[in-house]
């Protein structure tokens, strides 16, 4: 086998390894894609517009907030600002993951940032932390199924939204918190994990009660990150440079 053939088959198995890891995300996000499509049409979007928003914005919570405000006839610039606010946490993801994918060609990086969602970041960051390289094939395998299912299910939700049965009994409204808790726990071996979790949890709950959603996400996240920055480096496992 030539070197190129070996690297191609390596890419292919990396891709499928990513696809396997994407499956819980596909399952957990499916109800929200359908729900988004249904709500979008309910709030005055066409099926095509619901599909476009999922394909171009590709951020569940921000899409929900966007159509909610749209239905209440809020000024367009305020809707866009709200989408930006809900998605602001990605700035932190972007700064974190940049270290892991800096070796990719620029076009691949540009695409990689486009599909940088919560689970995409968490799973890729966990892989990097375990000492493995985050390759483009693996990253695409992880992200592409989620993206494709997301846009198709959004369109289906827009077309058939009124047919969803009892979502509460199926636990659909609480699947994402369960999934996110699992991701948080997956990072428990990191230095400072517990203090950061406590700081973020406390700050986000207080902000949720006072300032309100979606700002509690950014405020809580900044509290946890600041704690890690402020504590002396020997606590955080990062070696100080001489």
């Amino acid at each position, binding site marked *: 086998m030539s070197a190129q053939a070996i690297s191609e088959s390596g890419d292919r198995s990396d891709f499928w390894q990513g696809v396997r890891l994407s499956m819980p995300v596909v399952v957990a996000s499916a109800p929200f894609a359908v729900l988004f499509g249904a709500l979008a049409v309910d709030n005055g979007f066409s099926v095509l517009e619901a599909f476009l928003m999922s394909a171009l914005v590709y951020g569940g919570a921000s899409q929900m907030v966007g159509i909610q405000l749209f239905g209440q006839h809020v000024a367009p610039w305020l809707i866009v600002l709200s989408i930006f606010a809900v*998605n602001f946490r990605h700035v932190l*993801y972007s*700064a974190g993951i940049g270290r892991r994918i800096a070796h990719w060609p620029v076009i691949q990086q540009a695409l990689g940032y486009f599909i940088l969602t919560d689970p995409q970041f968490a799973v890729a960051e966990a892989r990097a932390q375990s000492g493995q390289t985050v390759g483009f094939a693996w990253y695409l395998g992880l992200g592409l199924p989620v993206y494709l299912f997301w846009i198709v299910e959004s369109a289906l939700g827009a077309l058939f939204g009124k047919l969803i049965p009892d979502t*509460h009994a199926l636990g659909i409204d609480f699947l994402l918190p369960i*999934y996110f808790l699992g991701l948080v726990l*997956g990072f428990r071996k990191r*230095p400072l994990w517990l203090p950061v979790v406590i700081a*973020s949890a406390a700050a986000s709950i207080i902000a949720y009660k006072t300032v309100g959603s979606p700002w509690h996400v950014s405020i809580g996240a900044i509290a*946890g990150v600041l704690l890690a920055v402020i504590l002396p480096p020997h606590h955080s496992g990062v070696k100080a440079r001489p």
Partner: protein
Amino acid sequence: MSTTFWIIIAGAIATYLTRIGGHLVISRFDTIHPRVEAGLNAVPAAVLTTLVAPELLNAGPAEWAALVVTAVVSLRGGLMAMFLAGAAALIVARQFAG
């Protein structure tokens, strides 16, 4: 072009800026200060926690049961096992606790 269309385009651009912005800022620096690096390492736990914590305020017995099962399974199992166990616990608990 409709207003809706422009809202979607502007929302998409704003979102992409958040996804690439952090990298564009950080990559301007040649070296990353240890404290900044410590902060970046804290990002996953810090951000993901904020997506769960406020849910605890409204969580009833069924939701708590699901979260506890998720936490216990996560000590041993992988992501998929933990997710399925948590979801199953939630559905079962809701049959009893509503």
